[in-house]
């Protein structure tokens, strides 16, 4: 008779530590570079050990306009710079494309151009995200200025800082494409063999 509710107790016992784990406090920084070169930094405290880039930005106390569509959530404007939500990429409808490029501060102090949208990317506690208005393509986009987590969160400074001299390049993915090609050929062959056996 008592056997059946036992699994319910197990379930609750599993959820309670997870809930407690989620209550751990984290901190991450946001760096926003406006077209005139003004650098705004914000430090955000959150519950848990990580937060999405989107939540980090919206909780930073900045004026943010976003649009959600089938391509995910896009950041249209920050602090009045950018486009309205109903035409999120109004400045990117052909050549001279400008929008808010999204960056992550790497452990070695360089900035990496994000290959994911802000809603998908998870910023770990101690991380810093960057947003820069301007040319947005991975090769053309100017990186945010050289900063550390301590600059943003421990000193809470918004002093002008020296921008990184070179533009950060997206990480190469040669091995990934090689494995993808092999998987594609393997699966294609398997399908072809299955059809032939029929």
């Amino acid at each position, binding site marked *: 008779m008592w056997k059946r509710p036992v699994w*319910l107790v197990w*379930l609750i016992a599993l*959820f309670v530590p*997870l*809930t407690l784990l*989620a*209550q751990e406090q984290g901190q991450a920084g946001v760096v926003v570079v406006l077209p005139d070169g003004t650098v705004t930094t914000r430090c955000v405290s959150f519950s848990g050990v*990580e937060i999405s880039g989107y939540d980090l930005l919206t909780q930073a106390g900045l004026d943010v306009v976003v649009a959600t*569509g*089938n*391509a*995910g959530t*896009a950041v249209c404007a920050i602090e009045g710079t950018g486009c309205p939500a109903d035409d*999120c*990429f109004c400045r*990117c*409808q*052909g*050549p001279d*494309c400008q*929008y808010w490029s999204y960056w992550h501060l790497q452990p070695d102090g360089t900035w990496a151009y*994000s*290959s*994911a*949208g802000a809603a*998908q*990317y*998870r910023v770990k506690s101690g991380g810093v995200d960057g947003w820069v208005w301007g040319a*947005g*393509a*991975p090769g053309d986009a100017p990186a945010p200025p050289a900063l550390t987590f301590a600059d943003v969160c421990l000193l809470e400074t918004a002093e002008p800082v020296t921008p990184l001299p070179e533009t950060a390049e*997206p*990480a190469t*993915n040669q*091995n*990934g*494409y090689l*494995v*993808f090609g092999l*998987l*594609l050929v393997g*699966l*294609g062959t*398997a*399908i072809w063999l*299955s*059809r032939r*056996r*029929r």
Partner: protein
Amino acid sequence: MPIARRIDARAWLVWVAGMLVLVMVARNPLYTLLLMLVAWWVMEVWRQNGRFPQLPFVRLGVFMLLLAALLNSLLAHTGETVLFRLPQAWPWVGGNITLEAAIMGAANGLVLFTLLLTFQGFNQAVSPGEIVRLIPGTWRDMGVVLLIAITYIPETTRQLRQIREAQAIRGHQLRGWRDWRPVVLPLLVAGLERAMGLAEAMVARGYGATADAGLSVWMQVGLLVSLTAVFGGWALTLWAATAGWLLIALGVVGLWWLSRKRGRRVLYTRYHAGWWGWPEFFVVITAVLPVLIILLPIWPVDYTTLSYTPPPQFALPAFDPWLGLSLLGMATPAWLPFILRQRQTNDSH
């Protein structure tokens, strides 16, 4: 080649659920392409001639991709790479037609096509009877209705083929829309006859003649509490996500338990009992593992590669080899029949 042994429908349900989660979460077209090929392989291995109408999948896939790319590029004008320009005065479609919007549309078309192949594979492998058998006793009436609904199109297609063959033997040829009358009328009549026959068979088996359909008071209270927990938890997620999801989970567990409790009062007799052996266990494990790898961000893989957003500027999607390899777990139902056949051959010698 015949399948040596069928796989239990419950294992197939886990596989389909895993595929759905992976396709919806991993929105990078490179991962979607791998999942599409996996679903195609499974469908080819489990294809049973005559069981379901076979569609021209290559043409259908190309059509879905092109249509989605066309629609998206006409309606979304975002992107730097302008292919051509339509007059701005044209409502909805006027403006730049960009490569990035077309790629985004094609990626969405690929997702839809992968879902189609997944369900086609599932339909090939699992009979409607097996699906209905999985429905709890509480929902027995719904199960019968579901069975009728999911067999309607295959039954009608089979009947259409029979009528066309019968008319062809009599020398009838389909040239214009008027020639379809000798096919459509018998199809309609046969459909009505089938409905009458089904209704008589259901009444003869006591469908709807349930002696005790009421719910006890404590069960009604339990139902109310569980539903309140689900909807209350949903609302709570807006303020406290963890507590909200916990409440939803408790509500769902409560609903499942009540449904199971009530279902015990309904007796099922089964001609074929279900089977659960190591192949089913293996299918479930290999389907759950990729889902856990993708949903629990605790593994040393690059989770940012799961998403891909071509607009506003085109860039090749990134690919994590370990995430890609983990998706191959979903291909277990495709290669498992070969192992089973080998074992069967060895046992018979």
